């Protein structure tokens, strides 16, 4: 069997990982662990993907946000707990109807080309994002029903929306709504995707060089003095230089780290975790990614999954604990609800409420009328085999070995008499089938540090046939109402209530099967101190320093 591994090894790994995970503070505000910060030095940070576009307002890739977080500041800062702190905005006021947000900006902020950061810069940037000519693939979505920005005075910007828009603060805390110098937008607005020195911003580092296919170089912005209120380092970065190296091959990233050629490696695969945690000069930082867990979405719009009993049977008929533990060496948490534990509104009460139960799954399928079995052991009803179509993404889109994880679940489903058909076609066919509602099961996660992600995944208006992501194809009045309520209030109690209920209902209706929490596992040399992680679990190098 492909999953069988000595349990002892797994246990040692889990222990090692837990230790590794504890060695760095969860709270970005926590001070560096190893004494007084040292000025100077260079850190090489290897990542697995190279951004297609370096225009932070255009790109929809996580990697663009991860890397450019070190160049771009935001109006507000979201910490690891989901709380907001002043950053480029000293304070802010939200209108009662949530249709406008007024930001009082810091007066001492300058772009690295000398242009002052002011309300006009906020307006220029947000207007640029909202302009269809920019072809923004993500930032424009984050701006939601944006109506415009009013320059109240030089350092007061009032951002207005066509309708109530509660998720805006979180959106404003992301790098995607960061600020380019209005001067560079004017002069290089159509060249920012290409990366390099034209990407002028306010952040702790300056984009000094870029070699496509190899690396991006960031150098320290010595004038930086406007870190988030909760940052350990309030001033300029300690490092002189930060090099982002693109190494798509995981074993090469890990090998480069263990041989000391780089200091920080992103996306360390679970099987390499022990190599790093077993090395005295290295450590692992494992952070739950916020947003939605990797989950199966069951298409309720057609047979056989229009039958709740069959859906329920799938939900409890696959051995998620075993699959996740074996494949990821205990490194990724098994999930119990759509939201990841590090996301506000996480419904903890759902934990352990729907454990694996093969007998109960079989009973449900019997009740649903799938009582006879054919020659291969699959259940049939009226001569038709119980088959679910569950397309695989093309290989280049498969993350975290989810294809192999699926093989285990395929075997579990076979045990209860369900045939899982997993065709692997090109991406065009995949999109046409899954987003056209022709497939029975879709599987994905969705990273975003905001429970509004549930609107995207569960609201009736988020139809995949119209650009949405609700692959359950269910327009449930309650789920739609709750996710609408959540995005139109900032009242924490109300939001926790509706998002909690929505998560519960999604499990009760068995329209989703949460599998595991995507985890950002970063390997680093212990000499790199003070590395913080933002609300997205992305590393922030502003407070990082290199021990001598």
């Amino acid at each position: 069997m492909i999953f069988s591994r000595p349990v002892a090894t797994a246990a040692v790994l889990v222990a090692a990982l837990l230790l590794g995970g504890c060695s760095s503070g969860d709270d970005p505000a926590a001070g560096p662990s190893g004494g007084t910060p040292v000025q100077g030095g260079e850190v090489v940070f290897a990542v697995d993907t190279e951004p297609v576009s370096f225009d932070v307002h255009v790109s929809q890739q996580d990697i663009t946000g991860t890397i450019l977080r070190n160049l771009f500041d935001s109006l507000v800062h979201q910490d690891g707990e989901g709380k907001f702190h002043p950053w480029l905005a000293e304070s802010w006021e939200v209108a009662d109807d949530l249709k406008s947000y007024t930001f009082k900006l810091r007066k001492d902020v300058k772009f690295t080309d000398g242009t002052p950061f002011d309300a006009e810069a906020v307006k220029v940037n947000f207007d640029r994002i909202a302009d269809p000519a920019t072809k923004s693939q993500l930032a424009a979505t984050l701006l939601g029903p944006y109506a415009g920005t009013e320059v109240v005075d030089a350092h007061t910007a009032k951002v207005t929306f066509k309708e109530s828009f509660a998720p805006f603060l979180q959106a404003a805390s992301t790098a995607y709504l960061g600020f380019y110098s209005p001067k560079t937008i004017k002069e290089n607005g159509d060249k920012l995707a290409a990366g390099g020195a034209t990407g002028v911003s306010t952040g702790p580092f300056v984009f000094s060089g870029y070699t496509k296919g190899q690396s991006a170089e960031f150098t320290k912005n010595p004038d930086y003095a406007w870190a988030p209120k909760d940052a350990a380092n309030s001033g300029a970065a300690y490092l002189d230089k930060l090099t982002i190296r693109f190494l798509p091959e995981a074993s090469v990233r890990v090998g480069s780290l263990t041989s000391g050629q780089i200091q920080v490696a992103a996306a360390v695969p679970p099987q390499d975790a022990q190599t790093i945690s077993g090395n005295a000069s290295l450590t692992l930082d494992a952070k739950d990614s916020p947003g939605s867990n990797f989950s199966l979405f069951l298409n309720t719009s057609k047979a056989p999954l229009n039958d709740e009993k069959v859906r329920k049977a799938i939900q409890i008929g696959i051995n998620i604990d075993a699959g996740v533990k074996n494949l990821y060496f205990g490194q990724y948490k098994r999930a119990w609800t759509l939201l990841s534990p590090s996301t506000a509104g996480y419904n903890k009460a759902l934990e352990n409420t729907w454990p694996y139960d093969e007998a109960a799954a079989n009973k449900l399928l019997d009740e649903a009328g799938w009582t006879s079995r054919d020659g291969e052991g699959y259940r049939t009803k009226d001569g038709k085999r119980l088959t679910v179509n569950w397309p695989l993404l093309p290989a280049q889109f498969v993350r975290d070995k989810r294809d192999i994880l699926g093989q285990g679940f395929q075997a579990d489903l076979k045990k209860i008499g369900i045939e899982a058909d997993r065709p692997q076609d090109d991406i065009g066919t995949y999109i046409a089938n899954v987003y056209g509602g022709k497939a029975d099961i879709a599987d994905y996660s969705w990273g975003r540090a905001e429970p509004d992600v549930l609107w995207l995944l569960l609201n009736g208006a988020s139809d995949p046939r119209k650009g949405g992501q609700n692959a359950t194809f269910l327009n449930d009045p309650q789920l739609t109402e709750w996710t609408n309520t959540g995005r139109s209030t900032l009242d924490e109690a109300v939001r926790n209530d509706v998002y909690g209920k929505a998560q519960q209902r999604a499990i009760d209706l068995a329209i989703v099967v949460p599998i595991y929490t995507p985890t950002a596992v970063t390997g680093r040399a212990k000499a790199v101190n003070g590395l913080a992680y933002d609300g997205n679990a992305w590393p922030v190098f502003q407070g990082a320093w290199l021990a001598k």
Partner: protein
Amino acid sequence: MKINTRPARHRALRAVAARAAGAVAVLWGAATLAFFALALIPGDPVTIMLGPFTTAPQSIRDQIAADNGLDKPLFERYLAYLGRLAQGDMGESYQLQKSVAAVIGEALGPTVELALAAVVIAIVLAIVSAVLTAGREGRLRGFVTSWELVAVSLPPHWLGILLLTAFSFQLPIFPVVGVGGPSALVLPALTLALPIIGVLAQVLREGLEAALAQPFAVTARARGLSRRQVRVRHALRHAAVPLATLSGWLAGTLLGGAVIVEAVFGRPGLGALALQSATNKDMPVLIGIVLVSALTFVVISALIDAFQLLVDPRVRT
């Protein structure tokens, strides 16, 4: 032998003109094939470009389609593309906000550097190994031929990681991260060269053995040349001719190998660019890379023909 009536210069010009016409035909064919092959991918091009996990609204999709001419019928797009191409314009990348010529121009240098280094290593090592073992029995030959078989059969991806693990991670001799400089080129070039050495050496050895069996080899020995002199001065020249037939294979292997080697070593270049544009469905860049590959093939064939003229008097009618 035929007697020449026309002046040689005239003849050469005609030959060059025919070659150029052939090259244009090859390029047109390559562009057309690439264009329609990419158009055959099912689904709306903008949807494919954005991928499955996007929240981009319809207005943005329409804008992307309009800006890249994707809202027009396929044949119209094809004619427009050919028209621009005829003027030497390969178009603009969908996502990089740069002209295809500039994107490929930047990537070309590192790949040429890598490919040349690999070819030099491959040819030198293949000649050494063939000359040492042709026509001889013994342990050395057995070892060399079986090693060649292994080198040809190893997946280059795995070979690269193996070399890195041994000579960069365990023994810190060559850097993987080092930017530029000859030491950073050694392992990638070797990864690309090893399978080529395997094939070249086998073909060379066979050619050498055939040449050594010819009467002229005996004559040369009778004139007092040493075994080594016969091998290196006479037989090798004969053996080199069949290699020319491998030029197409060589060009293909180098370009295909570059995709893998550049990905493993995180090197810039055409291969890495091809991989990224294929993933992001950046059609203009992909077609541009196909064109550059076709052009490379044409140039290599021309060079090999010239080389054949040089080494083989029989083709110089």
